[in-house]
């Protein structure tokens, strides 16, 4: 057992830190729209040009092929920039890209992976539907085979950045007769195809990134199917289990900074004499420490075995709960100042407080995470 990173990892951290300090974006990220997309992609291009894109991606797909510890280190250092953990690059880099690496044909990989790393394209996800949320396998959007094309008709929902995306990882039902998990296909959809209509969904944190996507006889070449027709469930599951070990690192490090900043603020404002606030802050400090330790434990397991451990759902569940608790504590420490949404140049958590309501819903609700832990890790009956 060892907590210290190897000399090699420590040197890597120094290198990352130096580069990020010099090249981290100075200007404020635009709040939405094409300007935000351009900002994110320009930032990705800069990382790519300097050789920082795809740290844990295999070398044959343009990545660095570095060990998971260095991916962790990158995230830990990146987090200190204070930039959002999830931006328009997320699905491409951390979701669709890894799925293509695992399941796509060499031609699909050659076409789609380099543009993701280079910062040429934005991807989005088309999984959830109005009638298929937690029960994803009940999805109904049709993909009817017509010659060498799939004709897609239906609706997806909760698609982040659909209005800014070039490509979508899309799940459609290509066989109505087969059992529900068996008739699903994972296909790459061109978001500029005729027949696609995108409507924004206004969220409670005033975000505009969420969309509904409607498909009216959208024609997608069969060559864009990944992993074979009617094999999409298994392809989707490989996506959902990917990167769970490190996926929350950025946010977790930022949570730790938030707790430290709150302790500082509470001290400055003489709030540590309030036992309830002092104990809550101490508890938050302990819980953030434990969340990081669990991340490290998961990575340690991943380094020894490629089988994903139980940490994925545990981390998601605990992270969402803790994040909610901490931003709630933050607005409490701020007092009436928290009534103002995002005043420039001041400590503010009010928007994050509102955003946090979604954390235990998106990416699999906390209830679903508990089912996964109970059934797949503990072996409790369904």
């Amino acid at each position, binding site marked *: 057992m060892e907590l210290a990173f190897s000399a090699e990892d420590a040197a890597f951290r120094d290198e990352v830190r130096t580069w990020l300090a010099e090249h981290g974006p100075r200007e404020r990220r635009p709040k939405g729209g094409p300007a935000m997309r351009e900002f994110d992609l320009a930032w990705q291009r800069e990382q790519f040009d300097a050789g920082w894109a795809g740290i844990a991606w295999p070398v044959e797909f343009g990545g660095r092929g570095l060990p998971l510890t260095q991916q962790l280190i990158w995230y830990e250092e990146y987090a200190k920039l204070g930039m959002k953990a999830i931006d328009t690059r997320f699905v491409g880099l951390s979701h669709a890209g890894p799925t293509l690496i695992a399941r796509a044909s060499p031609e699909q990989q050659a076409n789609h992976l380099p543009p993701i790393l280079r910062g040429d394209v934005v991807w989005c996800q088309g999984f959830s539907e109005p009638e298929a949320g937690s029960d994803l396998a009940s999805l109904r959007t049709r993909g009817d085979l017509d010659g060498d094309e799939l004709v897609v008709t239906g609706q997806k929902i909760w698609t982040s950045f659909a209005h800014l995306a070039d490509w979508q990882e899309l799940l459609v039902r290509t066989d109505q007769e087969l059992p529900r998990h068996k008739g699903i296909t994972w296909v790459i959809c061109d978001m500029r195809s005729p027949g696609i209509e995108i409507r924004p969904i206004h969220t409670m944190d005033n975000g505009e990134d969420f969309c509904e996507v409607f498909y009216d006889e959208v024609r997608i070449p069969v060559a864009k199917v990944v992993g074979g027709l009617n094999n999409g469930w298994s392809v989707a599951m490989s996506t959902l289990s990917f990167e769970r070990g490190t996926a929350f690192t950025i946010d977790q490090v930022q949570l730790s900074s938030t707790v430290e900043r709150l302790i500082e603020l509470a001290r400055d404002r003489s709030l540590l004499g309030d036992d309830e606030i002092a104990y809550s802050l101490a508890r938050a400090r302990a819980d953030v420490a434990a969340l990081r330790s669990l991340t490290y434990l998961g990575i*340690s397991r991943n380094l020894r075995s490629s089988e994903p451990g139980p940490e994925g759902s545990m981390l998601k569940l605990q992270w969402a709960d803790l994040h909610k608790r901490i931003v709630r504590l933050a607005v409490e420490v701020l007092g009436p100042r928290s009534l103002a949404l995002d005043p420039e140049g001041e400590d503010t958590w009010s928007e994050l407080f509102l955003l946090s309501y979604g954390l235990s819903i998106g990416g699999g609700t906390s209830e679903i995470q508990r089912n996964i832990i*109970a059934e797949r890790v503990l072996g409790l009956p369904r």
Partner: protein
Amino acid sequence: MDLLPSPEQEEIVASAAAFLAAEVSTQRTRELIDEPSNVDAKVWQAAADLGWFALGLPSDLGGVGCGLADEVLLFREIGRSLAGGPFLATTLAARVAAFGGEAELGTEIGAGGRVGMAVLGPESSLDPGGVVGTLHVVDGDDTELVLVATHERAALFARADLGDLVALECIDPTARLARATTTGAAPVVAVTADVDPVALRGTALVAAQLTGIAEATAVLATEHAKNRIQFGRPIGVNQAVKHPCADMAVRAELAWAQTTVAALAVDEGRTDAELQCLSALVVAADAAERNAAGTVQVLGGMGFTFDHDANLYVKRAFLLAQLLGPLRPALARLVLLPGPQ
């Protein structure tokens, strides 16, 4: 960075688990409840012979020379097993003696001595001159020495110097409790935390024991949820039962991960070692208490009986969480420490 035990460390775990299962089964622990001593002298000696009480003591001070990371692996197994006896106080006492310049006493304790724990409360204190006030002595009713430890210093006292001990029935029936009130007793030997952070190490060891409880109770509840049939189905199909079981597993994982990091932070001399150790204590105490409580609830009426082990875990968790003093001051201290490294 690698938080998993090495093959040699796996060996420590396997041999500890085997020893505890063979020599200190829960049934044996229950038999000892009605005996004058809660410790079987032969078993205690056998544990000492395995090097348990000197495991983390440097070899130049007569110890085995392993790290705190090895000791937490052992204490996690002790926690899981419900074995009674002053494992923590004895282990820490060997350090106090060894680092305090009483090498012979240190070796003696490590070789099979037994030392009780005196818990400080709001009406007692430990300073360089000695200890004053009302103390609660755990598993020290028949020991010659008792340990008192704070984050500043740790000291061993002759039990006889603390005045008359009043025997009390402990909330944990597998432990022995007495109360002493002293107007001032001088230590036999003492060390300050800068010489050896005795209480800090104790914090990690208690966290490990509490983690063992959190893990053991999570398993009890989950197994019951799988096997208990009501309304024609295992009760674990219900999310009202299934989800608490999932939460128990998460709490146990978090507690173990943090305890591991805490022990390594001490072993590697990190500046945030105290933050990591107090975090481990807070997280593990919560995990043990809530998992034990959740287990009683999942077990229903059976969980409320004395004959089921769930209640022994509830009581042990309650005792351990206070063995180094109440938790609130630890929280108050945690929030004032410098941030993580």
